[in-house]
């Protein structure tokens, strides 16, 4: 296999496996937020704002994987 093939494989693995963790994490976060809002609807504003910021933090992990995949595909330092 050439460096290009390995890079494509690496990009696929990075995105597909990198999406699993954040997906579970976002699911848990949203589920807990739903529960909290259902218990205390008057705190909904604060909870959803914190939820958004937290989701952004979690999502950053998936985006790092995407960035690694893009670097492998388009700016690979090992393939010329």
């Amino acid at each position, binding site marked *: 296999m050439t460096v290009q093939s390995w890079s494509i494989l690496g990009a696929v693995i990075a995105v597909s496996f990198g999406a699993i963790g954040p997906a579970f994490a976002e699911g848990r976060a949203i589920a807990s937020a739903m529960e909290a809002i259902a218990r205390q609807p008057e705190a909904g*504003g*604060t909870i959803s*704002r914190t939820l*958004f*910021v937290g989701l*952004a*933090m979690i*999502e*950053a992990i998936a*985006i*790092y994987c*995407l*960035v690694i995949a*893009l*670097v492998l*595909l*388009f*700016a690979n330092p090992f393939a010329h």
Partner: protein
Amino acid sequence: MSSPLVEAPLFTLGPVPIAGSVLTSFAITAVLATASHLLTRRLSLHPGRAQAALELVVSTIDGQIRDVLRRDPAPYTPLVGTLFLYLIVANDLEVVPLLHSPTARLETTMALALVVFFSVYVYGIRANGLRRYLKHFVEPTPLLAPIHLLSEATRTFALMMRLLGNIMSHGLVLAIVVSLAGLLVPVPIMAFGLFIGVVQAYIFAVLATVYVGAAVETAPAPAREGAT
């Protein structure tokens, strides 16, 4: 497929290459600045429609900042509001034919993240004084100073990458869908892209507020609930 990480310059102005995203970015800035100037030129106590709409926007941003920081939002509204309004326009520019979001490019998001990075120091030093602000890097022990510095760098990097990744990857997905089924199928995805753009603008603005607020609060303050 062309690389989303580099952009070919449109033309060179002397030694400086000018890319399309820079032009779009300048155009957005010019439009927003002109509109703000025109709208705020004749403010009256009995607002017309335009002024009422503008006041609604500004007071909403004020309210959000007050909710996050629990203090007077006046010093932070110029920074956060400008970032938010610029990002809403820039992120959602993708739906305008022939135009592309400048935030789908690394340079724009890097510049925005650097703005936040330096604003944190400006606000922090202005609120606490240089000595007290620098002192928070060696608290609780000087051993943690490298971690503090590392977190300053990584959170700026994350701010840049989050915005870039969301906007650019949406463009990529859209391009793939268009190449598979060009008619009508991409429309709901483009509508979802509008939503993503607004949410990312909101998140960027809230994170900028939180970072600046944390820098202002470096002084040993009495414990309060909901602090990050």
